[in-house]
């Protein structure tokens, strides 16, 4: 029942943040960031086992490993970007948060370009040559 631990941690951290914010808003922000980090680190251990299963499936079905690597990198980028943007948004800097998300989208697009080009090659190969 780890969900109870996580929810309890979140509730207690929220109460502590409210108490600390009365005196030092700076510390309240750091406390929020620390709690977020804590929960993320906890969750990433769980994701690890799922990724292992995915790798195993991909190896068995003979998919080229470069595709799986690209997908995993994209998931990692999304993970980091979500986390960073959320913390920055907590601190009230909406514009910087949206820039971080924009950077994440662009980097994901850059990583997806090889896969897209492979798809286009395949589709062109399927078309009859004379048309």
């Amino acid at each position, binding site marked *: 029942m780890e969900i109870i631990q996580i929810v309890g941690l979140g509730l207690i951290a929220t109460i*502590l943040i409210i108490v600390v914010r009365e005196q030092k808003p700076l510390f309240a922000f750091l406390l929020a960031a620390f709690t977020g980090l804590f929960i993320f680190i906890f969750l*990433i251990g769980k*994701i690890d086992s799922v990724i292992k299963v995915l790798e195993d499936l991909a190896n068995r079905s003979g998919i080229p490993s470069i595709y799986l690597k690209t997908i995993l990198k994209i*998931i990692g980028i999304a993970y980091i970007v979500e986390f960073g943007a959320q913390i920055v948004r907590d601190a009230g800097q909406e514009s910087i948060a949206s820039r971080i998300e924009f950077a994440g989208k662009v980097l994901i697009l850059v990583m997806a370009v090889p896969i897209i080009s492979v798809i286009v090659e395949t589709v062109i190969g399927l078309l009859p040559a004379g048309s």
Partner: protein
Amino acid sequence: MNMDVSAIFQIAGIGIIIGMIHTVLKQMGKEDMAQWVTLIGFVVVLFMVIRLLNDLFQEIKTIFLFQ
């Protein structure tokens, strides 16, 4: 949850105590000392947060196959 949850309570405690010290020093009329105390407490907490952030990023790098 094998990591130390007590770090959260540590940070909250540091925040409250720094706030108290700040108030006391301000009442004594030592404004500059109060500012320094706040700054040092902030740096200490920042170190804790950054160490955890480093852990998270290393973990993400190893799991999601970044080189």
